[in-house]
């Protein structure tokens, strides 16, 4: 199957893992299936592209190298929705709001994306506590990625 993408033109997704978001994402509830696509020459960020709506492409990143003390508990409703059975079977990414200049871009640490690598199900989990900001400055480490 070929899909139109925001940044990668038309691509064949037969051999690319597709992630199902049973609830969509807040504000994008109708978007249920995404693929993760690499950004040429950049290992820090990826594009999370909707398979059904070309303009829905989000920049995502592993938060842990960028925000070393980032930690939260995965809530019961997420564990149940994604059918998470153990500590080892999920990965976490966060969404970046890309701004000009790049250094002013922010990471959404309050709504991390949880991916169950066993069944390809995913969810944007919203943290009820206010420890983390949904517009966290990307910091020096990530900013270096654009210089």
């Amino acid at each position: 199957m070929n899909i139109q993408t925001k940044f990668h033109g038309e691509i064949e997704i037969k051999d690319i893992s597709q992630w199902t978001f049973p609830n969509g994402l807040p504000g994008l509830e109708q978007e249920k299936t995404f693929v993760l696509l690499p950004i040429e020459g950049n290992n820090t960020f990826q594009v999370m592209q909707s398979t059904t709506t070309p303009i829905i492409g989000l920049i995502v990143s592993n938060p842990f190298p960028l925000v070393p003390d980032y930690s939260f508990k995965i809530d019961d409703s997420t564990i149940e929705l994604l059918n998470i059975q153990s500590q080892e079977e999920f990965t976490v990414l966060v969404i970046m709001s890309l701004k000009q200049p790049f250094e002013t871009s922010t990471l959404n640490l309050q709504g991390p994306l949880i991916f169950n690598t066993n069944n390809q199900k995913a969810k944007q989990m919203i943290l009820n506590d206010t420890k983390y900001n949904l517009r966290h400055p990307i910091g020096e480490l990530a900013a270096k990625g654009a210089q």
Partner: protein
Amino acid sequence: MLVLSRKPNESIQIGDNIEIRIIEVKGDTVRIGIEAPKSVDILRGELVQSISESNTEAISIDLNVFEQLKNKN
């Protein structure tokens, strides 16, 4: 929207398995206890709204800014 009046310690039952209890009313703040199945997300409304806005903001990316991300290892 259904609107009900409740006093402290009174509750509202929704379906078979969701109970909302008024714990305390103090000034302009109402403390509410919610019992629901584990599968139900319980979130403050304004938080969901701001995550929603942030997602919408995150998809409006300028292609020129995106180009800056390439070949930056």
